[in-house]
Every structure is written in C-alpha cells, then in structure tokens.
C-alpha cells in the first residue's frame, strides 16, 4: 500500500472517530464545568468541579445557590433503579417470549392468516399512535406510573425484535440435530433446551443487548405514562431545569452516569457480540 493511501486511510478514520467521539467528549467536559462556564465557548473546563455530579445524588436544598439559586431537582437514584428494573425485566421477558415464538415459527407452520408477519405490525405504526390509547387503558386498570405498566409495554413493543433476530439463528440450526437428540432419548422440549438453546446463546445475548438499549433510551412512553414513582432516566434527564434555564452541567453529568451501565454490559458480553453480530455462523 502506498504512503498516500495510508495517510488517506488514517485521515478518514480520524474524521470518523472525531464525528463519533466529539459529542461524547464534549458531554464529559461539560459535566465537569461550573455553572458560569456552561455557556462559555471553551472546550475544557477552566475550574473543574464535581458539583454537577453532586446535584445528581442530593436534594437541591442542600446545594442551594450553587446552580443559579432557583433550581429544584431530585436525585437520580430512584429513576436509575426504576430504569434498571423496568428495562432489565422487560428485556428478559422479550427475549424469553421471543425465543419460544421464534422457535415455534421456525420449526412448525405458524397458524392463522397473518402468520409471523403479524408481529411486525406493531413496529410499522409510529409509536405516538399508541400513546393516547395506552394512556387511557392504563388509567382504567391502574397501571399508570407503575413499573409493571412500563415493563409490560416495553416487553410487548420489543418482542418483535427478538423474534426476528432469533428466528434467523434458529433457522440455521438443522432440525436433524434435535431429531437426533430425540431419537437418543430426549423429549422434544428437552432437545430444544439442550441442543438448540446452547447453540444460539450468542444470539440471545445480542438480541437482549439490542432490546436493552432500545428500552433504556425509550422516552415517549415513559414521559407520558410516568409522573413520580416509576420515572425512568430519560424522563428524569428533562427535569434538570432551573429558573435561569436548563442545568446543562447536571444533564451532562447524568448522561455520563447513565451511559456507564450499557458500556459495562457491552464490555462484559463482547465475546458474544462477535459471534452474535456475524449473524449465525454457528457451525464454524
């Protein structure tokens, strides 16, 4: 490879990296800036402070005066716990139901006039369409502002993804492998659990992560359906508003804290991501 093309390649990568990283680095830098620097044009904080992070975890009255005086914020602990419970449980439900549905669709003819394509329907309509009906329903059955309400909704909305991701993987596993296990003495259910399930472990992890990220950043439904008890992080982020405007520093700090969790999860499961994202090279 010539020098010119080598340089060109590095430049291209650099531009791409800058495009990806600048917003993140900028957010990180903003989270350490004191109130007076939030709107200042310089990139790095001149007087770095941890105050923004303090705002996240303490009631505003204890830190009054430091953020322009009039802000009234709540700690992010409850929203964080809410988010982890709601997103975690809904992801697990979506993956489990998705696996069994995908398995059934892959191994048996799906009944009814719609078949599996019916499940795509919920993703074809803009989510905003559902907001009002769901709001009315939830008010009637008392699901408003509850974790359970959000869990059920998130699981229902994302199960489509796990069905379609997992079906692709299950389709690639020859039926004969299960049949061989059945002939050797396993029941069909146990053959599925002992032969097919281990082979698509990576796919389960990948679809799980995908769904987790989608639900983790879901805003619209959370905003409409929660008020106090079941507020999630994306909604909580919007509450950092004071009398003198948005508390950018606190928002940035909250965003940084919030992104640590997916980062850690992604790191832990990266082994699966490689096999999972190559979409089903299970035989190699």
């Amino acid at each position: 490879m010539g020098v010119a093309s080598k340089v060109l390649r590095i430049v291209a990568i650099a531009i791409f990296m800058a495009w990806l990283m600048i917003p993140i680095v900028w957010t990180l830098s903003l989270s350490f800036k004191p109130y007076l620097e939030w709107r200042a044009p310089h990139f790095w904080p001149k007087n770095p402070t941890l105050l923004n992070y303090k705002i996240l975890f303490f009631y505003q009255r204890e830190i009054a005066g430091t953020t322009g005086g009039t802000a009234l914020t709540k700690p992010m602990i409850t929203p964080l716990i809410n988010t982890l419970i709601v997103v975690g449980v809904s992801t697990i439900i979506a993956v489990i139901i998705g696996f069994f549905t995908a398995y059934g669709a892959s191994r048996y003819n799906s009944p009814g006039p719609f078949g599996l394509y019916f499940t795509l329907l919920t993703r074809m309509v803009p989510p905003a369409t559902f907001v009002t009906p769901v709001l009315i329903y939830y008010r009637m059955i008392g699901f408003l502002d509850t974790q359970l309400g959000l869990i059920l909704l998130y699981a229902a909305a994302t199960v489509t993804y796990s069905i379609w991701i997992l079906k692709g993987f299950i389709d690639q596993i020859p039926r004969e492998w299960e049949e061989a296990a059945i002939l050797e003495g396993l029941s069909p259910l146990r053959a599925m659990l002992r032969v097919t399930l281990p082979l698509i472990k990576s796919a389960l992890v990948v679809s799980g992560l995908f769904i987790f990220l989608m639900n983790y950043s879901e805003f619209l439904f959370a905003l409409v359906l929660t008020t106090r008890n079941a507020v999630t992080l994306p909604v909580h982020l919007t509450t950092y508003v004071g009398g003198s405007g948005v508390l950018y520093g606190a928002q940035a700090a909250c965003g940084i804290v919030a992104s640590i969790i997916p980062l850690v999860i992604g790191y832990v499961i990266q082994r699966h991501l490689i096999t999972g994202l190559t979409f089903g090279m299970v035989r190699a």
Partner: protein
Amino acid sequence: MTEISLKVENLRKTFGNTVAVDDVTFEVRRGEFFSLIGPSGCGKTTTLRCIAGLEKPDKGRIIIGERDVTNLPPQMRNVGLVFQEYAVFPHMTVYENMAFGLKIKKLPKDEIHNRVLRIAELLNLEEYLNVRAGRLAQALMQRVALARSIIVEPEILLLDEPLTLVDAKIKELMRRELRRYQKELGVTILHVTHDQLEAMMVSDRIGVMCQGKILQIGTPIEIYDKPNSIFVARFIGSPTMNLIEGRLEQYNDELFLDADDVGIPLYGVSSEKLRGYIGKDVVLGVRPEDIEILTQPTEGSFAGKITLIESLGSKLEIIVELNSVTLHVLSPLRRDLKVGQPIHLKIRPTKAHVFNKTTENNIMLEEV
C-alpha cells in the same frame, strides 16, 4: 426361522393431498442390511421418518423387535438415525457427541467411557475424540454421526442418504467401511438412498420404491436379473436397460419382437408364459451387457449399424441403430469395431425380459 427386527405393515402417510407412502409393507431381518431405493419423492425418506417416529403415519403398523411402536414417541423406540445432513453437535467434542445419548440414558460414567473408546476404535475416531465436531471434515463428521447412532445400541439403525454429501472418492471407501462395521457389529440397518449403485454394493436385500409403493423386494442380484416391472428394470443398472416396444410374434417355433421396421429374434426364449402374449403389444428389455456383437450372422442374430463408440477404459459403450430402434451395447474392449460399420447382434439366451405393455409387469415372472 430368522428373527425379524422391523416389520412395517400397510403403512400410509399423506401430506395434504399428496400420498407420500401408499400401503407399504416389508420386513427387515435381524442383522440384515436392507436398502430402500427409489427416485427422490418416492416416499422412501418419509417411510424412514415414520419408522423413527418423526412423522405420524395415517395408517398401518410399525413393529420394532417385539414391540408395536406405532404410537410411541421417537425417544421410546430404540432406533438410531443417521441423517444426510450430519447430525453432529458442532459445539461439542467428538467424545461429548458420542457420549450424548448414553448420558441421556444415565449410564454410569466408566461404562460410557468404555463404550465411547470401543466404538471410537472401531470407527478409527480415537485421534479426534477431543476435537470439536464442528471442525471436522465432512466424511469424518458423518462417521461421528454413525458412531453416535450405534453407540446406544439401537434395535435398528436407520440411514437416510448418509453418503450423498460425501465426496465421490471417500464415498466409495465409506460404503465399504459401512458394510464392514455392519457385519462386525451385527447391527440391523435400514438404509435409504436414491443411488442404486450404492444400494447394490452394500445391501443384503433391496426394496425398490416408486410413487409411495414398494414395487419389488429382493437381493441385489435378484432385482438386477429379474426385475418385476419396467420401472425396476430401468431404475437398476447403469447404463440403463434397453427397452423396445413391439408386438410379440412367432415364426417357425421361434419368438421374435416385431417393432415396426425391425424384427428382433428372442433366441432361446421359450417360456410357456409368453405363448399367451403372441400377437400382443409388449416391451422387450435387454441389459446393454447382454447383447453380443458379432461380425458374422449366426442363428438368432439380427443386423444393425454402429453409430457411436465410447470408451469406458476397460469396456466399450456402443450405440447401434437398427432402422428406428437404437440399442446401447456394453462390450469388452475390442479394436475391430468402427463407427458406421454394419454388424450383427445377438441377445444372450435367457437374458431377454418381456414386459406386459399395459401393466408394465415382467411377463416371465408372472404366476401361471
């Protein structure tokens, strides 16, 4: 009396409006290598899957050993099955694959270990025991699949086109090995294939299937020498049997076939069964190797002209024209024949088959 390992009685299976298996009845004796052959779509694999319990038959009974297993789930039937697609779990080692079925049966650990080692030795798999099965070559994978199936000691082992995907060269070797394992272990095998040559090589007996029915059951030699119908005659043997339509006639006590502009004498054929067909339309079948090429006319010969000679190495495949009839002849290597040369042909005595044109059955085998 020989023991029966598998008995299939009046098996019938339909998919929607298609009849896949239509009233199939046969038996496999203990220790026998039985092959079901037929073109794809003839119902042989469906029959096999019904026996394994992977498909539910509409009608009929399946008896394995002494037990009627018709309504038992596959895991209770004590059958092994080797698929065309290698049913080997790629995420497990060869050892784990082989031990899988034994672990399900909850055998003690050292018993499992001993059996795995014994079968591995027999199938030459010892050096691969700790290799992940997904990394093996095709032929080896199929050997592991075979090992997995025989290690659980099934009453009957079912093979579903096991060698179709294996390379041609290794295939030949594996056929021989398969035959050897089968005899050494004394397993009963029901083998399904569309490859008639493979079936002829490995089987004790063969059942020829067509459109869901079994047409003929017999040893490879029986089926080759005495095909009971035009279909069997055409399906078995390569190059395929010559089939000539015409009217059976008699002249001076000798029978001959009148095919419009050609008369083919059936020299030495004097079956009483044919007498009733004189003057009727029949189909004459002669295998290419049962026609002799002569340079001088003799008694019972007829004239033709060579249009093509293909060398198969040790043999010649010669195409001969007799007016409107074309015959394939398989002859030992000889150098005195040329394209365009007029020659004389003679059907070896007793090697002519005469089929009823309407029923397509072999007249010589009909009960009188």
